[in-house]
């Protein structure tokens, strides 16, 4: 059985990608369940909570966003997730020291794969990489940041079926992605407004409300009626149908947005990613099949 386990399952890009992965594997005849601590994912795919998670012989377990210190931590996943937020300094120190003095070994009963979805995973000091059989990266650009000596593979996210819209609006910009300083939401809005967009719609998880209130709310007042907050929208077709242009000023090598813009005939203003990232869903599936040893 394939088990995807994430430290969060609130609505953001990584959760959507894991939901898609779960659905794709099930639709291709495999038995896959996505376990997460929040509720958003529960009606999106074959799913469960950390409380329901158990390891079984022969499992392929894909772990994301959980700072696992021991294999035993998988047996009490709820506790592992909740404890990860506490005593971070002590956990990082303990992990770094024990990784050198007492290197952990992988389980012989199941395959454990670490899924790195962040551009720079090197800050995950409390991760014990030696517990994992393999490390999964979404983009080859991540490997530049990561010096961990484990078997690794690159596999981009599955894409939803998107089609060009027949009736797109004019001068309606979309800012797609979590709303935060790291994603430069404010700069993206300003870029859209300077380009003459009449409406700017924010489609994304509100990752940093304080940033929003301090940086975006003042813009809504200085540009009355132009900036709208939609929040995270899981109907991607509807989202792309509602905008003519998408603005993205930050280099996000993992972003699917440029490809989705191409599929929906939406003008993309931002950093392009390399052609090697553009794989079909069948090609993406073949990578997973090979790396997880699926029959």
């Amino acid at each position: 059985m394939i088990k995807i386990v994430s430290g969060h399952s609130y609505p953001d890009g990584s959760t959507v990608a894991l939901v898609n992965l779960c659905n794709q594997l099930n639709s291709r005849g495999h038995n896959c369940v996505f376990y997460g601590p929040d509720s958003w994912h529960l009606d999106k795919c074959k799913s469960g909570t950390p409380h329901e998670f158990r390891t079984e012989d022969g499992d392929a377990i894909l772990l994301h966003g959980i700072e696992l210190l021991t294999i035993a931590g998988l047996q009490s996943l709820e506790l592992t997730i909740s404890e990860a937020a506490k005593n971070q300094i002590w956990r990082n120190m303990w992990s770094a020291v024990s990784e050198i003095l007492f290197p952990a070994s992988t389980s012989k009963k199941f395959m454990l794969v670490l899924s790195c979805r962040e551009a720079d995973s090197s800050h995950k000091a409390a991760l014990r990489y030696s517990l994992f059989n393999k490390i999964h990266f979404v983009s080859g650009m991540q490997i530049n940041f990561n010096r961990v000596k484990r078997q690794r593979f690159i596999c981009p996210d599955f894409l939803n079926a998107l089609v060009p819209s027949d009736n797109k609006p004019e001068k309606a910009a979309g800012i797609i992605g979590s709303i935060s300083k790291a994603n430069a939401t404010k700069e993206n809005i300003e870029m859209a407004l300077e380009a003459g967009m009449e409406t700017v719609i924010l489609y994304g998880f509100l990752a940093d409300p304080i940033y929003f209130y301090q940086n975006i709310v003042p813009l809504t007042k200085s540009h009355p009626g132009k900036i709208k907050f939609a929040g995270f929208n899981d109907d991607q077709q509807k989202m792309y149908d509602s905008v003519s242009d998408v603005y993205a000023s930050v280099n996000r090598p993992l972003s699917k947005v440029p490809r989705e813009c191409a599929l929906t005939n939406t003008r993309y203003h931002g950093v392009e990613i390399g052609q090697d990232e553009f794989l079909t869903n069948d090609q993406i599936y073949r990578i997973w099949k090979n790396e997880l040893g699926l029959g």
Partner: protein
Amino acid sequence: MMHQVAEKTFVGDFYKLCNMLKAREPFAFNRFSDGELYILQNKELILDTQQVKVGAKVTDGIYKAEDHKRFHPDEHSFYRDRLVDAFRYQAKNYFNGLSCRCCVGEENFQWQLDFHGNYDENYTWANLLVNGNYPRFIHEMYPLFNNYKTIFVCNEKADLSTLPFLAKDFRVGYNAMVNDYGLIETMKNWIDENDIEGHLFLFSASSFSKMAIHQLYEHSPENTYIDVGTTLNPFMDMSLDRTYLKSFWLGAKGKDLGKICIW
């Protein structure tokens, strides 16, 4: 009388409403907070800049103009009766949010149950969208409003231009429960004349909301009605004077965002 409700949780009830929104199943979520509780108890209530008066107890005023309220038991008995109607109304998918024992105390909580008379399985929390559920509301319920043609009923000072789902708005002023009561009939007529079905009505109009939600749901149960209270204030250029808003949007210290209300 004491009632035990199995597996009724603050988070579970939140997702119950979320799931109904996703399924486009019409419902009404009405909320009776402490202000409405005092009116139901027929206590004189004055909320303004100078004073907060509840019955005979008077403290310093803290309320901004849009939140001013004045209820006098003799002068406003008609409106109190309509509030009682809303409080005692029972119908399929009419969810009545009560002030919880952890927020108004055991005595007031029990008073509500006794005053209602019949136990309603649709009882829920008045605070269902705030406190520990507020991040869930912003992250998971708010985006669902995009799936509806949405009508907003709110203060005349509110700026709704950042809400992408807005189809129409109705405005109220100070002490709307008394001064704008006639708007309920106006809204019923608008619903009838325009064959409004499957729409979402959001209310941020203090005690007026309670009477309007009851009467509009009784009139047109094919629409959904939610009292969002102050939850959307940061999008409406309205004040962030509630503690849970200050904590979420300004990072102010406070325990409200971690508070999971009990039944």
